[in-house]
């Protein structure tokens, strides 16, 4: 078969795929008679209302000297790890707002960090294309720095995001600029599976974010610069279970809904979307109209523990709190008193859902929680 012939057939096949995709889209649209907000309105639901003390900044974590890029909570204890442009990871005690560890990274350009499920170690990744694991229990050297305990190297592009597989300290999923996601075995330091890359069903651009299903840790979603999110099964690395189209810009962040059947995405097109992994449908678009043409990108999202609220950070400094049912903005953290002085770059919810942590370009992290006195019923 000659090259020209192959090319021809490829083009023809691509056309078929596109037309099928278009038909699928049409069919979906015809079946999609409502969205979450419309239905909720029909049911007479009203948006959540926030009192002045319902969400206040109660701690400020100062200590970084560069922009904070990423943060993560431990599942059980109130500890936070944050990664910053100053090339350091800091592990915080959220209750006392003190640092417990500062880790100077061999490569200062860190993009992501994660706490292990047991809280024993932290992982980080960045432009060095390596995911580094630090064991918090290993002895510190004289500068109170921790040595790297394991380097997971194998990505051919920057590591954009990493997350431990829930309840497993030994497995970790990373996403990378080389269009792939990788499931790692930390004990051996080897790749267990590679998702995407050479395989056609993978992402066709840099993968920016992963999120693992909390209730079924075999499933995870990834968001990519190809404007899609893909759902993967860790047992089937060869192809994505489902591909979610809809966004018109890079998908910067994905996050599973607490019930594990849905996930949210945030994108450069300024929208957050809610997708259902079982039907593949898009359930809701969260978009706030702005006066000017400049659409702020969504940089980070996180759901409240009930799923009723969606916190979304935008590139213009806003951090909206969406009512996921009614698709209404109920609060803007960016404009609250005591808020950050620069844009909020990352968000994280504590495991029990009682506190939200925001990291910002102003080098600080803030912890937000209920600030008033509870009424006794």
């Amino acid at each position: 078969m000659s090259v020209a012939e192959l090319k021809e057939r490829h083009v023809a096949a691509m056309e078929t795929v596109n037309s099928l995709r278009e038909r699928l889209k049409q069919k979906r649209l015809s079946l999609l008679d409502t969205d979450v907000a419309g239905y909720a309105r029909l049911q007479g639901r009203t948006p959540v209302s926030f009192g002045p003390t319902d969400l206040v900044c109660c701690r400020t974590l100062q200590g970084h000297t560069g922009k904070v890029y990423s943060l993560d909570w431990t599942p059980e204890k109130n500890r936070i790890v944050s990664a910053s442009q100053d090339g350091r990871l800091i592990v915080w005690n959220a209750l006392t707002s003190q640092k417990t560890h500062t880790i100077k990274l061999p490569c200062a350009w860190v993009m992501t960090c994660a706490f292990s499920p047991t809280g024993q170690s932290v992982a980080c990744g960045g432009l060095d294309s390596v995911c580094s694991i630090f064991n918090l229990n290993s002895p510190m050297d004289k500068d109170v720095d921790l040595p790297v305990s394991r380097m997971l190297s194998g990505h051919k592009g920057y590591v954009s995001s990493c997350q431990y597989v829930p309840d497993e300290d030994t497995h970790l999923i990373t996403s990378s600029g080389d269009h792939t996601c990788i499931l790692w075995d930390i004990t051996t330091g080897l790749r267990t599976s590679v998702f995407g890359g050479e395989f056609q069903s993978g992402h066709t651009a840099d993968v920016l974010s992963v999120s693992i299903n909390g209730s079924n840790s075999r499933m995870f979603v990834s968001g990519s610069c190809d404007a899609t999110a893909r759902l993967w099964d860790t047992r089937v690395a060869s192809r994505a279970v489902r591909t979610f189209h809809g966004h018109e810009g890079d998908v910067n962040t994905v996050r599973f809904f607490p019930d594990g059947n849905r996930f949210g995405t945030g994108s450069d097109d300024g929208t957050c979307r809610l997708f259902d992994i079982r039907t593949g449908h898009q359930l809701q678009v969260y978009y706030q109209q702005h006066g000017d043409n400049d659409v702020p990108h969504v940089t980070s999202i996180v759901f409240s523990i009930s799923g009723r609220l969606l916190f979304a950070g935008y590139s213009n400094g806003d951090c909206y709190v969406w009512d996921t049912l009614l698709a209404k903005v109920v609060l803007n953290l960016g404009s609250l008193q005591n808020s950050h002085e620069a844009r909020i770059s990352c968000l994280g919810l504590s495991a029990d859902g009682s506190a939200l942590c925001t990291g910002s370009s102003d080098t600080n992290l803030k912890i937000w929680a209920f600030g008033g006195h509870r009424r006794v019923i």
Partner: protein
Amino acid sequence: MLAAVPPVETSDAENGAEYSFAVEYSGPPVTYDLPRAVPINVERIPVAAVVAQVSLSDKLSLPVVQPLLAPDPRSKKFSRELITLGSDSATVISPTSVIAFDRDNESVRQCKELELVSEATVSPTSVIAFEERDTGNEGCVVSGEFTSSGVLEYSNGHYGSGDLSDVANSSRALGFSSISHELSHELLGGAGSSSTIEFSDILDKSQGSSLRVSNGRKESLDINNDLNQADWVSNESVLSFDYPSSRISSIKAVDCNNESNYDLKRTPVVTFRDVESDGAFDEECTQDEPETMPAKRVPQTKGKKGSCYRCFKGNRFTEKEVCIVCDAKYCSNCVLRAMGSMPEGRKCVTCIGFPIDESKRENLGKCSRMLKRLLNDLEVRQIMRSEKKCEANQLPPQYVCVNGQPLSHEELVLLQTCPNPPKKLKPGNYWYDKVSGLWGKEGQKPAKIISPHLNVGGPIKQEASNGNTQVFINGREITKVELRMLQLAGVQCAGNPHFWLNDDGSYQEEGQKNTRGYIWGKAGTKLVCTLLSLPVPSKFSNSCGEQVSSLVNKTVPDYFEQRILQKLLLVGYNGSGASTIFKQAKILYKEVPFSEEELESMKSKIQSNVYRYLGILLEGRERFEEEGLIELKKKLSSGKIGSSGNMVNNDDKTIYSVGPRLKAFSDWLLKTMVSGNLEVIFPAATREYAPLVEELWNDSAIRATYARRTELEVLPTVASYFLEQATAILRTDYEPSNLDILSAEGVTSSNGLACVDFSFSPSAPDDNIDAVDQHDSLLRYQLIRVPARGLGENCKWLEMFEDVGMAIFCVALSDYDQFSFDGSGSITNNMMQSRKLFESIVNHPTFGQMDFLLILNKFDLFEEKIERVPLTECEWFDDFHPLISRHRSNSNSNSINNSPSLGLLAFHYIAVKFKRLYSSLTGRKLYVSLVKGLERDSVDAALKYAREILKWDEERANFSLSEHSIYSTEASSFSH
């Protein structure tokens, strides 16, 4: 000095008993002596007017306030400074206003009002003005009780308010809007329990903001609280919030002010005592004042004496943690709230970023029991570490004078990081004998022997240690104690000799060559020294001489490293030679450019590369063989009749055929290559196949193929360099040379970014090194090589490089006739792809204000290539029409004014192309450097050029005029 001021005032005042605060302070009843104050006030009225003028003149001497605006990049800090300034002025006022309020009577009103006015004018400017006035005339120091309402009305109704608003305006113009707030607040606070309603009117007028100051202290505090948006929960503690900053500001002012600022510090003390005797304040407050007595300004607390500054509970004996800046004390319940996450150690949240109280320097990093109880061990360690290490807590270098010169940052770091530093360095004046390493306080005998030959401070003075013995050591007249020691050590000191003492203890008389002896050579000398409490050299001070000189290896504190580290971003399209430059920089500036592991991996990489090249050759051989056979058959079929006799020997052989053994090897190699695991097999295979490769390489078939290598497109140009020495490389004991490493492909990982820290060695003797250049040797540079992959227009991570000083963009000149697949799969000229990448990076918002240095690389290849292939091969360069005929004739005749070669012409042409492109995109100037990546000197020159650009950038602001001329000449030098 501090103590001096109040007595002056008292003597000035008629009734001294009133004003000798320190003495009279115990008498609250005095406050009711109203009649006495009246005559004083009458005197004061004219005086106050004079003062107003004085203060105006002081307003002109604004620079006094400058240190407050001193460098703080972050706007937050800046705003805090503004507030500081505001509260500074406010506190200046508060004492007087308090005084006035407290001990006034009706007739004081005018004076009071005048004070208000004058203060208002003074406030944004300087503290001194006020102080002068305070001391210079009796005006301020009013005795007597102040019946509040009347005065306030007065000042409200008339030009007191007007002036206040004036101030507010002017301050707003200066950007200190907080001043007026603070000021008014302080006035209110000072007014204490006296009614403040009228005052609020002033506020409204002057600020236009509807601050509801109904009455009393509480309300004003609330206002203050609103103004300061800090995470501060209790309203009551606002005062303690306010004062620390004001104290700091006064300290800052000291930087460039004279001691008169200390007077300022004193004033609140004065007032507070007045307040106390006055009794107008509520009980708590008056009782608290002695607490704030220490000469420094301290946070004011509403609580009882000795209570926590935040919750006002507890007493003197409850355990408390102290802020190392403002001396505020917090109980264990409040300390975490008040100090937050302690990024700079034990400081109130509001004190973060301010220098510490020098008297507490000794306690830095020493943890209290309370913190240990509250926090776990790890947390405490982190706090103590940041307390010691953070920049704000370091000794301010200008406070340390060595040989009469205040130190710079670099010098202080040099001093503190030397192998044998002066212990527990405190602000003060020191002398330092660079030759022997003797160190001491100015006017005193030596205290220590530190590392010698440090380039800190000025030259040592003759009278540095205030000696009077007429015996000199290294130009310093020594003290009697030292002379005694010398005598006891057996040194001849008759006839007032001048000694020259080296760091190893050897001494000689000035002007003589031979060493007279070693001072510390005898055991007895050391004993004598200890008896006389003179220093002896520490054990390792002798061996440290070498280490001092090599700055590169020294560990510099973290905070300082950030200051001196300049980042250079190295970007280039694939094959542009960016990694060659990176490797070259490593070889140039690192003592050990590559670690053992790196060398090992490079070795195997180079070896597998050679196998790959061989594979390509073998593949080519097969192709050529096939072609040869076909041709042969054709020939055979065509030449059957004619020359069949010749064909008998090589019926199915061409010159490209190999023997069966080599054939087997070649098949195996090609198979491994196809399966793509070439790297996996090596280096194990190296040993086995090395002899075979030698045989293969010497085989005539391979030689023949190699001769036709230009026909093998996939074979890179560097391949011939390696293939020529293939047999040597494939030996197991092969060690890659620098040139091998530089030429090799893919030895630096192309996956991620790589960075190398280096500093330019000051070795070059032709660069005349002056003092400034020596500091430059401390400067470090970080070359960051970024993979071109993913450097698209929408690159998400490029903004991480916003702190980079300059971007170096690398383009291979020889790319102009090379083509490769671009992202969309179509074949594009490499030069055009470089250009596209260049455009997208230049247009990236992160690099909006960054300088670009364009490195046109691979000039050696280019020069050679341009003779064969015209530059117009690339569509961007289609208008390149050099005057070839003239050039030819010139180069042939070798004339004296040898005009540039074709290569140089083309280089200038391309440089101008890029410059035009750049200036059309940004409107700025592009720096261009011509480099041959394989030649160390040319890379060195390019990186030094980059350094010059960076340096020039820093100075550009200062010399904008002269810069202009340089600019134009340099620009023209390149534009042909």
